[in-house]
């Protein structure tokens, strides 16, 4: 049973924040939902992908976040409801579409979910996407819990249609990836088809139109401010008896505030902003007037704090406002109860209940960072590349599992900024360095943002080797399909776009396809590629070992073992290759039968032919 679709109205179900968003969209009658997968947003799309057919909605994993947003805009401007979800950095890609869409506005409800990642749990930065709401003039809702993910997503569709504006729902890792009880309502299918009514004076943003539409947007924001000031999503929690001290907070920070305030036995009023942009000016102004001292608690940037201070100054309110500017809370990394408790203790001169930081006595334990899996084709590729280049090359890397190759023994990443950056940065590296330059990009990332870089490199005759690490899936985020896949989500038919066709279409003349499990072929091909002028491309194609190893594929796994009589203890299999199935304990190297994926790469790596296939 897919509880996202089938949970009965009125029941309490255990849902992930992301699943609660998906359920709410179904109840709100969403017609079109799109995404590009990215942690911590991925489960929104994955949940909808599983039920799209039965729910009768259209869902797609789009090529990138900008395309996802544009597809949703096409649907919403036609008058049906649309949802687009992405991780925070995805909104950088989608921003071009979103900033101007705020000018045209929407007809059907349009909700964009951005899942931020304070502390960079699985991201290259921890940017605070609330700034996009400020930048674009877009109403912003910030849930704190799975139940609020559900409530606010439903409300976001209503607000969007009321204001005729896109609405951003912003979560963080500690909201998206929290599971809790959610009381659900009824799934009410909405209209799936409509007719686009032409209105070029609104929807075609040539300069003359855009100038006028900006004024409309500003007017809508005034209305949004009024709606926010009386929105049920903004509420005051009264703790204890004294009514002179206040806290203004939002999102995950609210949770830490409530737990800390209880532990510290604070007498304080907590204004929780769920609808936080535009700042509900009347509500906040009244709250400030009613409290002598107000502490603003928020994760990452001091956005609420700055606007609350500006409002107080404008309205001539003398209350003391404290926050990050006073050093009470850090501006980097996620908050927790200890940090919030410590800031509130200092602000309110409370005593007791302070929490200790974990003892660091166990820091010397062997670390266990994420690693490339047993049988991972990327490991084989990196081993071959190091062999071919003798490690004398600069590696431009990209976003995906293969970034994990940055650690020794591969050291296969020297520069990484964003999706698709391997290709563009390789061009610049090659222009000013004498060493060979090799760019690594995954299949999904290549489709997402690698293609314009490749066209640029061909056109400007940049000289580097681009290796497209094609494991036939979007592995890191949970094996979602991409444009190269021949199967889409259930209920849809897709056309696989061949990577070779795209590469040749970009004007690349030297292209080879290798199986990375074949170390000699891959090594020789890399050597040959590096002799070429201009851009050379190698597609290293081998299915992700996690998919190939699934029980249901029926694949025979050829387990390997180390023949201890032949083993010379040279440690090549441990020091130059790296496989979680191979261990070296008490100077004995061995393969864990349970973990071995049967790729056979280690047998090629061993210089003494001591690794054999089990009979």
């Amino acid at each position, binding site marked *: 049973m897919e509880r996202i679709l089938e949970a009965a109205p009125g029941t*309490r179900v*255990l849902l*992930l924040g992301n699943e609660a968003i998906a359920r709410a969209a179904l109840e709100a009658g969403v017609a079109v939902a799109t995404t590009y997968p990215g*942690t*911590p947003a*991925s*489960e929104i799309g994955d949940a909808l992908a599983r039920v799209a057919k039965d729910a009768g909605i259209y869902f797609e994993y789009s090529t990138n976040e900008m395309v996802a947003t544009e597809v949703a805009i096409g649907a919403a401007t036609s008058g049906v409801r649309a949802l687009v979800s992405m991780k925070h950095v995805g909104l950088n890609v989608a921003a071009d579409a979103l900033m101007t869409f705020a000018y045209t506005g929407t007809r059907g409800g349009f909700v964009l979910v951005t899942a931020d990642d304070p502390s960079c*749990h*699985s991201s290259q930065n921890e940017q605070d996407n609330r700034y996009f709401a400020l930048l674009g003039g877009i109403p912003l809702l910030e849930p*704190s*819990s799975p139940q609020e993910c559900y409530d606010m997503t439903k409300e976001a569709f209503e607000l969007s249609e009321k204001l005729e504006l896109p609405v951003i729902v912003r979560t963080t890792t*500690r909201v998206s*990836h*929290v*599971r*809790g*009880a959610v009381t659900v309502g009824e799934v009410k299918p909405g209209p799936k088809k409509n007719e686009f009514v032409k209105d070029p004076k609104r929807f075609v943003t040539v300069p003359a139109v855009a100038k006028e539409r900006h004024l409309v947007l500003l007017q809508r924001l005034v209305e949004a401010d009024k709606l926010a000031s009386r929105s049920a999503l903004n509420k005051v929690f009264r703790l204890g008896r004294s009514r002179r001290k206040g806290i203004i907070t939002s999102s*995950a920070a*609210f*949770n*830490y505030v*409530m*737990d800390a305030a209880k532990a510290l036995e604070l007498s304080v009023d907590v204004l929780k902003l769920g609808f936080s942009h535009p700042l509900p000016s009347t509500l906040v102004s009244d709250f400030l007037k009613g409290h002598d001292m107000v502490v603003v608690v928020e994760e990452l940037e001091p956005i609420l704090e700055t606007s609350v201070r500006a409002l107080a100054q404008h309205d001539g309110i003398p209350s003391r406002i404290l926050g990050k500017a006073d050093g009470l809370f850090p501006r980097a990394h996620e908050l*927790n*109860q*200890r940090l919030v408790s410590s800031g509130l203790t200092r602000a309110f001169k409370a005593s007791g209940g302070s*929490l*200790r*930081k*974990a*003892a*660091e*006595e*166990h820091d010397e*334990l*062997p*670390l*266990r*960072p*994420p*690693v*490339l*899996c047993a049988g991972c084709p990327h490991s084989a590729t990196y081993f071959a590349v190091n062999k071919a280049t003798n490690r004398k090359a600069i590696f431009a890397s990209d976003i995906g*599992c293969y970034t*994990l190759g940055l650690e*020794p*023994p591969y050291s296969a990443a020297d520069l990484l900024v964003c999706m698709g950056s391997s290709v563009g940065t390789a061009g610049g590296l090659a222009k000013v360095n004498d060493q060979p330059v090799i760019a690594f990009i995954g299949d999904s990332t290549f489709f997402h943002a690698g293609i314009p870089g490749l066209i640029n490199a061909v056109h400007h005759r940049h000289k580097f080797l681009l290796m497209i690490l094609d494991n036939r899936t979007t592995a*890191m*985020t*949970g094996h979602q399909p991409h444009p190269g896949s021949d199967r889409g989500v259930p209920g849809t038919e897709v056309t696989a776009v061949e990577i070779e066709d795209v590469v040749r279409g970009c004007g690349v003349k030297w292209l080879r396809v290798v199986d990375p499990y074949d170390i000699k072929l891959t090594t020789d091909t890399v050597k040959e590629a590096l002799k070429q002028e201009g851009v050379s491309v190698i597609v290293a194609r081998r299915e992700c070992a996690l998919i190939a190893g699934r029980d249901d594929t029926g694949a025979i796994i050829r387990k390997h073992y180390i023949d201890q009589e032949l083993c010379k203890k040279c440690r090549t299999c*441990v*020091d130059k290759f*790296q496989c*979680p199935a*191979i*261990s*070296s*304990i008490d100077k004995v*190297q061995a393969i*864990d039968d349970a973990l071995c994926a049967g790729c056979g790469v280690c047998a090629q790596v061993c210089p003494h032919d001591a690794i054999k296939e089990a009979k």
Partner: protein
Amino acid sequence: MVDIYLVGVGGQGIITASRIIGEAALFAGKNVLLSETHGMAQRGGSVVCTARIGDVYSPLIPDGRADIILSFELLEALRALCMASKSTRVVTSSERIVPLAISTKKLNYPSLDEIRSQAARSAKDFIAVDAPRLAASAGVPMSSNVVMIGALAGVGVAGLERAHFEKAVEATIPRKVSENLHAFSLGFDAAKNAPANV
């Protein structure tokens, strides 16, 4: 309030285990919040999930405040002791998954006795269960996580009864129900009858 800190290695089914706890709490009529590790961290790395049963807002457990540490791997149990106080119960699988750093940096994997004595200093007690063996004997070798949920129920979670957990196992893992319930009961008995260490 009961705070359970779940640790192990990506791929051991820890998220599923935390969901079983969550469902059991709902069956018992309690509130519950779980936090999960997804994405990059899952590729064979250390994984942490939390389960907080009771009325609380934050899904994260403050340092040193775990009531129970439920570990799926020995070294991770040791690493998790920073969350322990003298009232914390540590329940761990005796499974060892050797991290690459041990091989590449020529380090030692701590012995069970070392881990036991560390736990004696930091926690109330320490119960080790041979989860992979019990799962295999129940006919579901992939269900070490279910064995450990049984062990959790065996040491007891205030307000949650054995039947709540069993119903939650069934609701969360619809395949091989009788085998998984058997795995659960083996874990339950192993923890319940474990000698009181420390």
